[in-house]
């Protein structure tokens, strides 16, 4: 009898700005039938059987210090039931500097493993069966080099290239926007990527030569809709680059894969993945006329954690990562990396890394949420969000098109500016308490860092030992062969129609270093010039 006097609840919005109704009813949906998994438009998943056919790959991003230490951590994670490797490389390797380079001096082996030449790669993978384990490398401007090094390592181990599976990130466009490990200007970088995709299709057809990543722009601050919008726009830029070479769409589209962050708004994250699958499949079919059904499949891995984790009360992050992992599973991810609770401020300890892996094992084996395909399909709210997320993503892509395309938007700093705007907005909301982050702006504790666990410490002697190994290999290698390989690379770099991959593989076999190979290419191609800060 008093219901009509109750005030209406305040309007609520998802972090992407989609209005959240108090109740969703069927008449609020456009087309209430989301179709079937494994069929166009793949909203409900790319496989008819979902995870009943095949579980996601549990792939913990890991690597630090020397190749020996990282190899030890990989063997530990594999012994604990991890099903794929994910190699974190240090910044010098990512930016193309050898460990002896003065600009690299503070960062050798810091945020990942130092991998300057084939000998280090062989130590890193020692005792791991490359034909049986899939390996992912988070590497971009030097991706073609690290891929060449991986192929050379497989050659030396007697593992056929055709049996290799895994992924190199190899997505330079988002590096210019958010992650910052660019080296060369856009044009030659796109060439290297196209070279590696074409070569991988021929040599190692089970290996994903690119993982187009939205994770980093998202973690830098943009919304879930922008994360997908920018990433699909980048994906299409790579597709166009390959088509411009006269390559057939169906010869490479099935090997394109994607990579995203999962943050805390569970249903919006699920809707994001469902909408992305639908948009990609339609684009490839309608705009690019792909005929092979495999070309339409939007395959993606995720990372749970990142900037949604807090340094304050770090054990709270276990709950965050658990929630995000559920969103990833309900969204149909092909591989999942769960961050460790201490990752907001340090390289995980063995104990926190194990707990992160256990989090997804518990969800996989105990929760039952992976036992039926797309269990949220047909939920009024999730279908409502999926439709609206699709609209928002398409609007972001249109905005980029209107600007003049993704390359122009990046070179002129336009997307960078949008991300800073979003990040400032988010910071204002958190500072003002409008967006609650438990332990940071609500339920804080006086004693600092309550619940803080074990401290990870790097071996301070690492850099010296890595440099000693580096110098030894340069003394020991056949320098005549190395010089010859580097010279061949340099002269091919000026001809756009030569695929550089076989030349890079030969450089790696000859124990040329990452810095040497990058140096040859830099001489011809120059370096990317960062656009000034726009606001």
């Amino acid at each position, binding site marked *: 009898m008093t219901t009509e006097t109750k005030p209406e609840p305040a309007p609520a919005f998802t972090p992407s700005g989609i209005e959240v109704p108090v109740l969703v009813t069927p008449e609020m949906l456009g087309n209430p039938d989301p179709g079937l998994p494994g069929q166009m438009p793949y909203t409900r998943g790319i496989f008819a059987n979902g995870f009943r056919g095949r579980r996601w790959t549990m792939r913990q991003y890991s690597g630090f210090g020397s190749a020996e230490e990282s190899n030890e951590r990989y063997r530990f994670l594999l012994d604990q039931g991890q099903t794929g490797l994910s190699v974190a490389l240090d*910044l010098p390797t990512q930016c193309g500097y050898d460990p002896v380079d003065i600009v690299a001096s*503070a960062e050798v082996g810091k945020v990942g493993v130092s991998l300057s030449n084939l000998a280090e790669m062989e130590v890193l993978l020692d005792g791991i069966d490359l034909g049986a384990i899939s390996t992912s490398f988070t590497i971009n401007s030097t991706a073609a080099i690290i891929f060449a090094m991986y192929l050379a390592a497989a050659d030396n181990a007697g593992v056929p290239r055709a049996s290799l599976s895994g992924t190199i990130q190899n997505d330079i466009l988002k590096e210019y926007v958010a992650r910052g490990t660019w080296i060369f200007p856009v044009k030659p970088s796109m060439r290297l990527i196209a070279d590696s995709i074409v070569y991988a299709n021929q040599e190692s057809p089970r290996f994903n030569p690119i993982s187009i990543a939205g994770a980093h722009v998202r973690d830098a601050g943009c919304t879930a809709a922008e994360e997908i919008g920018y990433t699909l726009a980048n994906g299409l830029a790579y597709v166009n680059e390959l088509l411009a070479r006269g390559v057939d769409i169906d010869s490479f589209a099935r090997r394109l894969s994607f990579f995203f962050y999962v943050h805390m708004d569970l249903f919006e994250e699920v809707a994001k993945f469902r909408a992305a699958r639908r948009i990609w499949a339609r684009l490839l079919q309608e705009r690019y006329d792909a005929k092979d059904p495999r070309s339409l499949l939007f395959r993606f891995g995720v990372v749970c954690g990142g900037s949604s984790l807090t340094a304050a009360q770090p054990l709270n992050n276990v709950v965050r990562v658990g929630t995000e992992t559920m969103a990833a599973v309900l969204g149909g991810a092909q591989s999942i990396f769960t961050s460790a609770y201490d990752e907001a401020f340090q390289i995980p300890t063995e104990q926190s890394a194990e707990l992160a892996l256990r989090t997804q094992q518990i969800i996989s084996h105990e929760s039952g949420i992976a036992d039926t395909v797309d269990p949220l399909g047909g939920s009024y709210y999730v279908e409502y969000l999926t439709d609206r997320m699709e609209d928002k993503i398409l609007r972001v892509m249109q905005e980029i098109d209107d600007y003049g395309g993704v390359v122009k938007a990046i070179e002129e700093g336009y997307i960078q500016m949008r*991300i800073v705007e979003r990040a400032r907005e988010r910071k204002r909301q958190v500072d003002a308490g409008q967006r609650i982050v438990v332990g940071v702006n609500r339920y804080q504790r006086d004693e600092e860092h309550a619940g803080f666990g074990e401290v990870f410490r790097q071996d301070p002697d690492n850099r010296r030992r890595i440099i000693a190994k580096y110098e030894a290999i340069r003394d020991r290698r056949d320098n005549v062969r190395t010089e010859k390989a580097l010279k061949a690379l340099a002269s091919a770099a000026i001809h756009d129609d030569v695929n550089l991959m076989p030349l890079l593989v030969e450089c790696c076999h000859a124990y040329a270093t990452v810095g040497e190979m990058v140096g040859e290419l830099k001489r011809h191609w120059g370096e990317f010039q960062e656009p000034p800060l726009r606001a």
Partner: protein
Amino acid sequence: MSLKGKRILIAKPGLDGHDVGAKIITLALRDAGADVIYTGLRKSPDYIARVAADEDVDAVGLSILSGSHHTLLAQTLDELAKLGAANIGVFIGGTIAPQDTQALLEMGALGVFTSEMSLNDTLSALEAALS
């Protein structure tokens, strides 16, 4: 709060490419009235010190998310001292393990600001340190 008239250099030392925090603090300082220069990515401590001295700034902010803060702070302080500009204060922001803050302050950092501090608290602390 006002940082009016203060000249501040925000810098990204080393190879770390995460620059959103540096950009946000640059814009927040500008809004608070300071004259701010942002270096862009991958600057060496020696370059940063030279710009700081040439531009006669009151303080340098180093944004570091790669875990290399001890080394990069030490190198920047060193380079400033070599140029006779040890009076320029250096503060740090980024991903800094809580247990490292004290050591950075003891090495001579003017302040250590992480992303979980509110921008207002960060600006107030800077204003106090620079007044």
